[in-house]
C-alpha cells in the first residue's frame, strides 16, 4: 500500500510546482526569513555568531506561511469536485492524508534549506555552535510540519480555501502564542501555576525552543510527532465522514 502514499505524494508535490504557489511561497520565505533576522532580529548588532535572530522569528513566519501551504489540501479537492475522483481510487485515507502532508512538508523543508546561506555566513563570521543550529533547524522543520498538519485538518472542514487559511492561521497563532513569555507571565500572575504550566506545555514555541538550545528532548519530539499524527488522523476522519453523506 506504500505505492498509494507515493502516488499521492508525487501528485501533490508536482501540483505545488505546477502552479505559482510553491514559487511564491519559497520566494516569500527566502526573503522574509533573512529580512526578519537582519532588520528585526538585528543579526549583526548581537555580535554573536549564531542564528538566534532568525530562529526567533521563524515561528511567526510559520503562523502565516504554513497555513497558506496547507489550505488547499482538502478544500481545493472539495471545491473542484476532484475529491470524488480521489475517493473512488483504491487509496487508504492514511495514504491520502500522509501523501498530502509529506508533499507540503517537503516544500517547507526546501524553504528552510533556502536559509542555509545564513548558516554558512555565521560560520564565516565566527565559530557558532553548529550542533545547536542543526537541532534548531530540526525543531523548525518539526514545528512547520505540525502547523501544516493542523492546517490540513482544518482544510478538511471546508470547501473554501480562504476559510481554511484563516482557520489555520488562527490555530497556528494560538499554538505559538500559548508559549509567548507575555502570555505565560500574565497567566502566572492570574491563574494557578498548574494551568500556566499546562498552557506552556501545549505551546509549540516551548518545544521548539528546546531544539534551539541544542537539545533533542523525547517529550519535545513526542509533542511534534504526536501533534502531526493526531491532526492527520482528524483530517482522515473528517474526509471519511464525507462518505456518510452528512449522516
Amino acid at each position: 500500500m506504500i505505492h498509494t502514499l507515493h502516488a499521492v505524494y508525487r501528485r501533490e508535490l508536482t501540483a505545488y510546482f505546477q502552479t505559482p504557489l510553491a514559487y511564491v511561497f519559497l520566494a516569500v520565505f527566502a526573503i522574509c526569513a533573512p529580512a526578519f533576522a537582519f532588520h528585526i532580529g538585528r543579526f549583526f548588532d548581537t555580535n554573536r555568531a549564531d542564528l538566534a535572530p532568525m530562529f526567533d522569528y521563524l515561528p511567526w513566519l510559520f503562523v502565516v506561511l504554513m497555513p497558506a501551504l496547507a489550505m488547499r489540501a482538502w478544500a481545493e479537492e472539495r471545491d473542484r469536485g476532484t475529491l470524488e475522483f480521489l475517493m473512488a481510487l483504491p487509496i487508504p485515507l492514511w495514504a491520502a492524508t500522509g501523501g498530502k502532508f509529506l508533499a507540503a512538508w517537503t516544500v517547507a523543508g526546501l524553504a528552510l534549506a533556502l536559509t542555509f546561506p545564513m548558516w554558512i555566513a555565521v560560520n564565516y563570521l565566527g565559530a557558532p555552535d553548529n550542533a545547536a543550529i542543526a537541532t534548531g533547524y530540526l525543531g523548525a522543520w518539526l514545528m512547520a510540519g505540525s502547523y501544516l498538519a493542523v492546517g490540513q485538518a482544518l482544510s478538511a472542514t471546508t470547501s473554501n480555501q480562504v476559510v481554511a487559511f484563516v482557520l489555520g492561521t488562527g490555530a497556528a497563532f494560538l499554538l505559538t502564542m500559548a508559549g509567548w513569555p507575555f502570555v505565560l507571565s500574565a497567566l502566572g500572575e492570574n491563574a494557578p501555576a498548574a494551568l500556566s504550566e499546562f498552557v506552556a506545555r501545549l505551546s509549540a514555541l516551548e518545544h521548539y525552543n528546546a531544539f534551539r538550545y541544542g537539545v533533542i528532548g523525547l517529550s519535545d519530539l513526542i509533542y511534534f510527532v504526536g501533534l502531526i499524527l493526531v491532526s492527520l488522523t482528524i483530517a482522515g476522519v473528517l474526509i471519511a465522514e464525507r462518505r456518510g453523506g452528512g449522516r
Partner: protein
Amino acid sequence: MLVADQLIKDFGSFRAVDGVSFTLERGEVLGFLGPNGAGKTTSMRMLAGGLEPDGGTASIAGYDCMTQRLEAQSRLGYLPEGAPAYPAMTPRGFVIFGLRARGFSGGALMRATGLALERAVLGEMADQPIGTLSKGYKRRAALAAAIAHDPAVLILDEPTDGLDPNQKDGVRQLIRDMAPEKAIIISTHILEEVPAVCSRAIVIDKGRVLFDGTPHALAAKGPDSTVESAFRALTQGVGGAEAVA
C-alpha cells in the same frame, strides 16, 4: 460482477435512494436512466465506494464496496458526474496518477497510459494542462483515467455530456468496443444512446427502480413505442405505463 442489493441512502429526512437492487454481468451495458434528482448519481457513488449506503449492500467482483472498499475499487473504473480533474495536470499526468495509485509502474504504466490516451482520442491535447482544455477534452481526460487500468466494471456518469456529435459517437463506439469484456453502467439524459449502446436499461425515479429490462422492452412501454415516450410514461405517469420494479 456487480450487485446492488436494496441500496438505501438518506440525506437528512430526504430518501434519495430507496431500495435499489440489480445485478450486472460481464458483457452487459446498462443504461441508468431517470430525471434529475432521481437518485442515479447517488446510487453510482455508493457503487463506487464514495458514499456509504444507509441500508443494503453493493459489491464488485464479489468484494463489498464498503467493507472491502480497496479490493472493490481496484476492479472499478469510475467517471464521476461532471468529470472532475485537476486543472494544472495534463491528461497524461492525470492518467499516470490514477495508474500509480493502482500500483502500476515502469513499462506497464507507460503502456497503459498510452493506450488509455489513444482510446479516449486525446491526441495532442494529452500534454496540455486540463484547465486549458475544452469541456469535451476534459471529459475525455477523465474517461481515459477511468479506463486506463482495464477494470472489470465501469461506472460512467453521463460520459457523453458536453461532447460534440462526433465525440459522442467516438465514446459510444469505445463503450461498444469494451462491452464484451466488462460490465458497464452509463447514466445518461440522452435517451437515443440507450438503444445505440445499451443491452439493458433501468429507469429510476424518486430513488426507486421503475423499470429493468432491455431497451426494446422499455420502448414497448411507451405509447408510441420509443424509449423517449416510455421514459415520460414511467417518470411522469403519461400514457398509463405501470411500474415494473
